[in-house]
């Protein structure tokens, strides 16, 4: 029950369209567009509510209440905030590169949308099943770097430029351990397809067989999304808000929401690669697979928030040193151990 609700809707829509005499190719196209629009809506609404979740989690960790007045338990607080931001004046800084300045908050949402198109949300629930899913995802994710930098540069502000350069340096440095950590999982499964990776975790999740890769991935993922303790890109006390300093109104809100979209991607990716994706643990099949996916994803998002409100920001040189001298060697060692382990396990016949 509930398991096939989304797949059922897709089948129903397809039947409805072919019943109305729509040719197959158009049927597929319409269905794909519907899926992608649904995903876009999901990202936007979810990013909005994650801001609320962040504020509540932060409040509880600091013995406060957080937003409670707008709507039941303050649930509409962030929607009201967005309404306010939409009504605000967009201030254009003097000497800014207007076209780039105004374009970047718009295109910042393209990489997250492209990535969500290939994520398996549940059993048979993937908009585009790609053979090279993991690789595609990493490739698209690397595109946000240049958008942050261009936003910082176009603002014509020293702090923004410093923030933009910090974002470039940080994202390039931490992309490497992120990819190397995922390599351990890919070596075991021998595939880049996200669905197959989920399927091969039926007996044991990779968080237990690849604990070091999981930790490296988690830390590098935090750095990739520019969240505390790696929020040097924004660093309020040092460079005000980095690339977003000059943005006001909805332009700022777009960057803010994109950060949460990126947190969702890193958490969803973590769920797929290490936590068994939509597979139910302990045979608890009565909960639908997509609900398991979202439960695990939100658990990971909560961990991200927990870390954010627990640790202070680290220094720039410590950030680089940690990335290159600790995480990269650790990830490389993990790949080596995984490779050797695979051969030993094959030799003694525990694993084929």
């Amino acid at each position, binding site marked *: 029950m509930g398991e096939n609700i989304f797949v059922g809707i897709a089948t129903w829509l397809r039947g409805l369209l072919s019943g109305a005499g729509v040719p197959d190719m158009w049927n597929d196209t319409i269905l794909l567009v519907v899926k992608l629009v649904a995903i876009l809506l999901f990202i936007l609404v979810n990013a909005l509510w994650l801001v609320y979740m962040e504020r509540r989690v932060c409040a509880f960790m600091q013995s406060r209440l957080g937003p409670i007045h707008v709507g039941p338990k303050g649930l509409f607080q962030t929607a009201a905030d967005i309404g306010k931001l939409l009504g605000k004046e967009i201030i254009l800084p003097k000497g800014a590169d207007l076209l*780039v300045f105004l374009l970047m908050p718009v295109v910042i949402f393209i990489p997250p949308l492209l990535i969500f198109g290939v994520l398996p949300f549940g059993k048979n629930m993937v908009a585009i099943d790609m*053979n090279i899913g993991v*690789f*595609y995802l990493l490739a698209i994710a690397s595109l946000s770097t*240049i958008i942050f*930098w261009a936003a910082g540069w176009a603002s014509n502000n020293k702090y923004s430029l410093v923030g933009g350069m910090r974002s*470039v340096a940080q994202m390039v440095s931490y992309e490497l351990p992120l990819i190397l950590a995922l390599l351990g999982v890919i070596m075991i499964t021998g595939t880049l397809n996200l669905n197959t990776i989920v399927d091969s975790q039926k007996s044991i999740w990779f968080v237990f067989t690849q604990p070091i890769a999981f930790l490296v991935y988690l830390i590098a993922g935090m750095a990739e999304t520019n969240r505390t303790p790696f929020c040097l890109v924004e660093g309020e006390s040092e460079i005000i808000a980095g690339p977003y300093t000059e943005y006001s109104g909805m332009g700022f809100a777009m960057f803010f929401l994109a950060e949460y979209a990126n947190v969702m991607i890193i958490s969803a990716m973590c769920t797929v690669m290490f936590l068994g994706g939509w597979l139910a643990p302990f045979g608890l099949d009565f909960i639908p697979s997509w609900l398991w996916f979202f439960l695990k994803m939100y658990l990971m998002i909560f961990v991200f928030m927990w870390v954010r409100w627990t640790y202070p920001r680290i220094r720039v040189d410590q950030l680089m040193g940690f990335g290159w001298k600790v995480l990269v060697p650790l990830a490389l060692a993990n790949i080596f151990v995984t490779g050797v382990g695979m051969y030993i396990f094959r030799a003694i016949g525990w694993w084929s």
Partner: protein
Amino acid sequence: MELLDSISWVAVAFHTLAAVAVISALLVVFVRNIVHAVLWLAVFFISLAGVFLTLNAEFIAAIQVIVYAGAICIMVVFGIMLIRRWNMGETNLFNSQTVAAAGVVALVTMLSAFLSFKSGVVEPAGDVPVNQVESIATALLTKYVIPFEVAALLLLVALVGAIFLAKEVKADDADSHS
């Protein structure tokens, strides 16, 4: 509906992507601000990845995005930011070496025309394999293993060299200030 069905959508996609690629490549050369040139370069690389996708070469397309749009553009960004000028509007200028440039362009055009006529229209040898990654990996680690290892060695040398240079500067700094 019949008209729409008769159109080859792959051809439409190819021509759109090709137009975007050509226009953005021209803009990389012609815009006066070098930062805009980098952004157009990223657009060019991504549209080229789209052309690879129309050939069913998903893996190559992803490589195109991660290596060129992701890494090469970032490298150019570092280059620009390290040699920053005050007036960014005048950083990608034309010079007066028209004769030399015309000669080089004519030579390159003739060479590429000659090569393309010589090779003729290439017919595809077969369908693209479904599991491209495995075929590429097998080719890299069997037939082309020596070039692959040499490239790896070259990258390692470059990495060691970069670390050495960074260390050197630091030591000099400490000496001159103490």
